[in-house]
């Protein structure tokens, strides 16, 4: 019997295991109806993202004007022109790079500085944080109009203040000076968004355990050393978010540029997004699509390099 039981028990066990597996398998198998739930999101993704992206690739090898039924396939000619025969695109890319560097560095440093100074939850810090955050709730167009009048050489606040304190020599045409115009726009961007990014840093700083600072202080670390060896490595995730967000924001400063520089903006204020828009306006859809693809590649490349740089900086300290 024992033998029999022993012989049978595995079979019973097998049956149970099979039943169990079947139950688990049935439980693991998703009810097909559930697959309908992601469908709306998938449709939206395909219609509004995947489809247009694929179309952009297709348009980029044509000379389509945006409305004619007829068009020519031009192969890689559009890309060749962008790379070798287009001062306007090159100028816009250069402006964008200058804008990006100033905004990423200045905005990150300023927002971190504000966060360090205002990280405590005292009443005055909270009030100041709210004040610095205020520009972030304004639309870019409003910000552009406010600063357009700030920068006005005749009635603008900046030149009036400079004149009022006897510094007439420092008066400038600001956006009218081709060599510096883009930096003034970058300054506006920093003003508008530093407070917003400060909030991310404040959240990051408040996650750092107080004990780490106490032990660093016991070890005789100075204020700077505490920042360098405790704060900076531990706010790496916040820094990565801020830098990535600021980079993408710098490439998308479209409405700010158009608000400050008009449509189309002068060459000295043109950045990649406004250049692509102007090309579309000029009824050169094929070429604009090729510019958009190059733009996409540049953003991907810059974002990748930046993430590497941030990681290296924070692991290397």
């Amino acid at each position, binding site marked *: 019997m024992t033998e029999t039981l022993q012989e049978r028990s595995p079979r019973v066990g097998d049956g149970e295991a099979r039943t169990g597996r079947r139950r688990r398998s049935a439980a693991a198998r998703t009810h*097909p109806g559930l697959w309908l739930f992601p469908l709306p999101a998938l449709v939206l993704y395909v219609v509004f993202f995947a*489809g247009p992206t694929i*179309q952009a690739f297709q348009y980029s090898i044509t000379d389509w004007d945006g409305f*004619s039924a007829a068009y020519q396939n031009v192969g890689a000619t559009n890309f060749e022109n962008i790379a070798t025969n287009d001062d306007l695109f090159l100028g816009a890319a250069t402006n964008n790079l200058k804008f990006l560097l100033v905004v990423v560095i200045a905005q990150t440093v300023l927002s971190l500085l504000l966060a360090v100074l205002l990280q405590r939850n005292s009443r005055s810090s909270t009030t100041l944080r709210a004040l610095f955050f205020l520009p972030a709730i304004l639309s870019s167009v409003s910000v552009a109009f406010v600063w357009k009048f700030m920068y006005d050489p*005749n009635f603008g606040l900046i030149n009036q203040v400079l004149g009022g304190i006897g510094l007439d020599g420092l008066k400038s045409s600001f956006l*009218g000076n081709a060599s510096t115009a883009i930096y003034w726009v970058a300054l506006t961007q920093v003003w508008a968004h530093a407070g917003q990014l400060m909030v991310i840093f404040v959240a990051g700083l408040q996650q750092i355990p107080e004990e780490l600072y106490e032990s660093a202080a016991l070890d005789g670390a100075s204020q700077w050393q505490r920042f360098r060896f405790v704060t900076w490595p531990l706010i790496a995730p916040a820094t990565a978010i801020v830098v990535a967000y600021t980079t993408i924001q710098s490439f998308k400063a479209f409405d700010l540029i158009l608000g400050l520089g*008009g449509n*189309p903006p002068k060459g000295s204020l043109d950045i990649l997004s406004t250049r692509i828009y102007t*090309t579309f306006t000029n009824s050169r859809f094929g070429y604009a699509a090729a510019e958009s693809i190059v733009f996409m590649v540049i953003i991907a490349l810059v974002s990748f390099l930046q993430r590497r740089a941030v990681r290296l900086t924070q692991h290397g300290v």
Partner: protein
Amino acid sequence: MNKNAFGQPLSRRTALQLLGVGGAGAALTACAGPGSTAGSTSAASAPATGKPTGAISFAHWRAEDKDVFAKLISAFQSATPDVTVRQDISPSNDYQSSALQRIRGGSVGDVFTAFRGAQFVDMVKAGVYTDMSKQAVVQQYEPSLITAGQQDGTQYGFPYQVVFNMPVTNEDIIGTATGGTPPKDWQSFLDLCDKLKSQGLVPIAWPGGDPGNAGQLFNSMVMNNAPSDDMCAKIESGEYKCTDDWFLTTLKQYQQLKPYFQPNSTGTAVEPCQQIFATKKAAMLATGSYHIAAIRALGATFPMNVISPITTSAEKAKYEGIYNATFILGVNSHSQHQAAASAWLEFLSQPANAGEYANGTSQHVTVKGVEYTNPDLKALAPWLQKKTLLAPRFQFNNLDIRSAVEGACIAVVGGKSPDAAAADAQRVVDQQRSQ
């Protein structure tokens, strides 16, 4: 469990396969050739006739004319009770950029407008204008003023406004300084500017920070310097170059004007320029007559006129000034209510209604027999008879070429040498032509 068409349960794999097939289908759909969804670009036909009924959209960019159009719409709807008109207004820059795509759809702009130049050319090419050549309404317009609405002998649209794209003057100041005789050559114009400057005035308020408005002075500066009237079209076609003598002369003259513009003029927007002019700190506003109403709104009460710098000697000058016929009205070929759209266009073309628009907005119109009662329009009316050139800057169909050529003038005022500015502009022209 759901079952498929064969009565079998729909597994995860099957569901994924179906989604994959759907996605691939969508991707293939996305690969449909460009232009395959485009509207007709075939030869335009006349607008449909019949009893005007329905709700129509009137697409334009003149937000400042909204109230005057609202009054006209009200009168039109009273006379044509089965039709309602809605204004679809976009800012002029947006209109320039995106109107064609919106109007092609047919849901907006049963009656629409176009800027003279690139936009009109594209709209004709896209087939959104109906052919108005044989419509009775053509007779309502001054033939010489509606050529900007024609292409290849077909009248597609009717330019409605006549504006003078040349500096507006404060006649109290300029009249006194010139003794009523405007400068007839370049040196006299510079002397006038010098005299005004010595009186502590800004001779010319020029919005160098606003390329659209800054470019209006370009019209006057090239009208007599260029070897032919289609100079901008020839720059675009490659026949003329920015490095040609006549264009370099123009750039050098811009350089000469620099001391007579307000300080830091390349960074000044148009609104501060209007303010300087309206408060009598500047004698001229280098934009155009289309800003007179805005100047009045700022409280200016002085008499105004327009003036064009004559950039040559008096004997060599072919033209006294610049005009533009724009706001090109048309009936949308994709409209479902073409009879109603035609009725609205005909209503606007009647002298009494055109007069209401003109006097209400301080702009001359191309409609015949209009009585101008607005004092500013009366003051400018003699310019309708003078020897003026249709604004050449709108001959450019490539906006990047236009920006490069006009940008050279701004760059020179900003301190760049004329030779370098001309070379830079020509390089962009060459690149655009070769792309």
